[in-house]
């Protein structure tokens, strides 16, 4: 090997820059929003998964002798029912834990469905351009013109409150954001020379989309998914509150707020507890999503 191409100096004196993963880890550990958001989210997720073991009571068990018992901070609060009981004497904490299970499950699966639909359309439109793109843009525009809440209400009213129906409904109603973002990102990536290199190597379009484009979109898709999940949880709560979502007696946070409505002036905690749960979970998901964006985007530009 001749002197000119071996470049020993470059190696001898070079301390290699940290890997993208190490950089991301470093940024993540110094991002309070991300830590708090994911921390809370992890806690709720854990509680939801462990619901059968950690919930103190059966969420369906009614005890009419102990209806509307005060929570622990109320005048007659007891440790047996930390968050009190509802109008049918069911333990609020247990219903809250089981409700988290439902909210997260609906939020997660519907976000995945929406993500699959939206990202597929966005990537295809952005990558192929031309007529494919025109079709995708048309679909996005149609979707954006749909009044989401109205459609959700009417479909839920017709299809009834099966959980599967709600998941599918919300998945099909919220894919537009994925499509818009992935489409424009794919358009930018498409112009990068590494795509040209792969094409010049004879790589198939499928391979380029799966190996070159998607890995570069993953972070952004995760960010959108988190925002989408928060939105879906809110819509589900709203549907259940209106009686069009999950049916009683299934424990759902929206349903719990709805059930507490009639007694909200006497027992405000029956609304406040599930309301606060929805609020905190949505905030936590948003914080986590923002955090992921902050932590990954500087590297995404490289």
């Amino acid at each position: 090997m001749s002197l000119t191409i071996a470049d020993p100096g470059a190696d001898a004196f070079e301390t290699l820059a940290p890997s993208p993963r190490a950089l991301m880890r470093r940024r993540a550990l110094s991002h309070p929003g991300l830590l708090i958001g994911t921390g809370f989210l992890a806690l709720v997720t854990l509680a939801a998964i462990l619901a059968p073991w950690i919930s103190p009571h059966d969420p369906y068990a009614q005890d009419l002798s102990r209806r509307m018992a005060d929570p622990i901070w109320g005048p007659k609060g007891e440790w047996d029912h930390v968050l009190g009981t509802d109008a049918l004497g069911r333990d609020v904490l247990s219903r809250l834990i089981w409700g988290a299970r439902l909210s997260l499950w609906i939020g997660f699966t519907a976000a995945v469905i929406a993500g699959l639909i939206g990202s597929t359309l966005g990537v295809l439109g952005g990558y192929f351009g031309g007529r494919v793109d025109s079709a995708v843009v048309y679909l996005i525009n149609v979707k954006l013109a749909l009044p989401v809440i109205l459609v959700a209400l009417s479909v839920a009213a017709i299809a009834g409150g099966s959980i599967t129906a709600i998941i599918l409904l919300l998945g099909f109603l919220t894919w537009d954001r994925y499509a818009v973002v992935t489409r424009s990102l794919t358009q930018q990536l498409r112009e990068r020379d590494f795509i040209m290199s792969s094409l010049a190597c004879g790589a198939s379009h499928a391979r380029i989309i799966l190996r070159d484009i998607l890995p570069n979109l993953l972070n952004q898709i995760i960010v959108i998914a988190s925002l989408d999940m928060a939105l879906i949880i809110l819509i589900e709560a709203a549907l259940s509150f209106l009686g069009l979502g999950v049916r009683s007696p299934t424990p759902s946070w929206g349903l719990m707020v709805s059930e507490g409505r009639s007694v909200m002036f006497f027992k405000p905690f029956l609304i406040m507890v599930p309301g606060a749960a929805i609020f905190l979970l949505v905030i936590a998901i948003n914080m986590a999503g923002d955090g992921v964006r902050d932590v990954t985007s500087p590297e995404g530009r490289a």
Partner: protein
Amino acid sequence: MSGAPVLEVEGLSVDIDVPAGKLHAVSDVSFCVRPGETLCLVGESGCGKTMTSLALMRLLPPRATLTARRMSFEGRDLARLSERDMARLRGDRLGMIFQDPMTSLNPVYRIGDQMEEVWLRHRGGARAAARKRAEFLLERVGIINPRQRLDQYPHQLSGGLRQRMMIAMMLMCEPALLIADEPTTALDVTVQVQILSLLRDLQQEFRMGLILITHNLGVVARMADEVAVMYAGRIVEQGTGREVFAAPTHPYTRGLLDCIPKHGQSAARGPLGSIPGIVPSLVGEMSGCSFRNRCALAHEACRRGEVALAQAGADHAYRCVLPPGQARGQAPAFAGGAA
């Protein structure tokens, strides 16, 4: 090319706070620029040349701190001016043009409006007078049909025209000093020569000091009255263009010159010179010569202490521990390479 300097800089340093510590982007840089004279700051990416120019304009990023023993511009100390006075100076007595004019032009305003705005902000008066001046300057920088161009938007111009227009805009208030950061790097070679000629003519006409920041040694050789070669935040060689190019002394300057293919040099006659290795990290304290890890002449003495500037000629200094003869090696770098 005489008269009192329009800008005198002594001991300019810029430190940037980064997670790993302090990054010494510019260390102890001194130079001066006289009216009608061109100073070229030359170096490769990351050598601190752009940071130096931003420091002069006081446009450093927020995490950067500027220290200077003296930064005197027309008798005023740039390092100590209030933000308001500094804003008054920029675009008036102190102009700057960039590699990509689009970044410093507002795409939603017409060219004429932006040029007039400069004049009105600094000098006030009637818009009609400002327009007249804008038209005169556009014509002066060689734009045909200046009146129609004034009503166009920046994106309607080609890269070369845009750079001409940017120069005209900077001349609105007749600056005493113009800082041009890689003004021709994005342009085609034939356009580059035209823009450089224009800058040179205007500089003579308006008796402006010009700081030209570039990585292109060809541009430096043809434009510079004074040259400062920067490496790792320091000036490693400084002097009149004639002396520096006639007898490049610092091993880095000589290495850079060897890297450029000369007229008549083909691969058949052997490889180009090259500088092995990479620029050291500028984070944290370091002692000794910052070029030593890439220098063929490095020895024990290069590790210790601060290397001071030494005289290589009447108006020619270099930062190396070796005496000029030894630093230059046997043959002068320029004649080396090919012949």
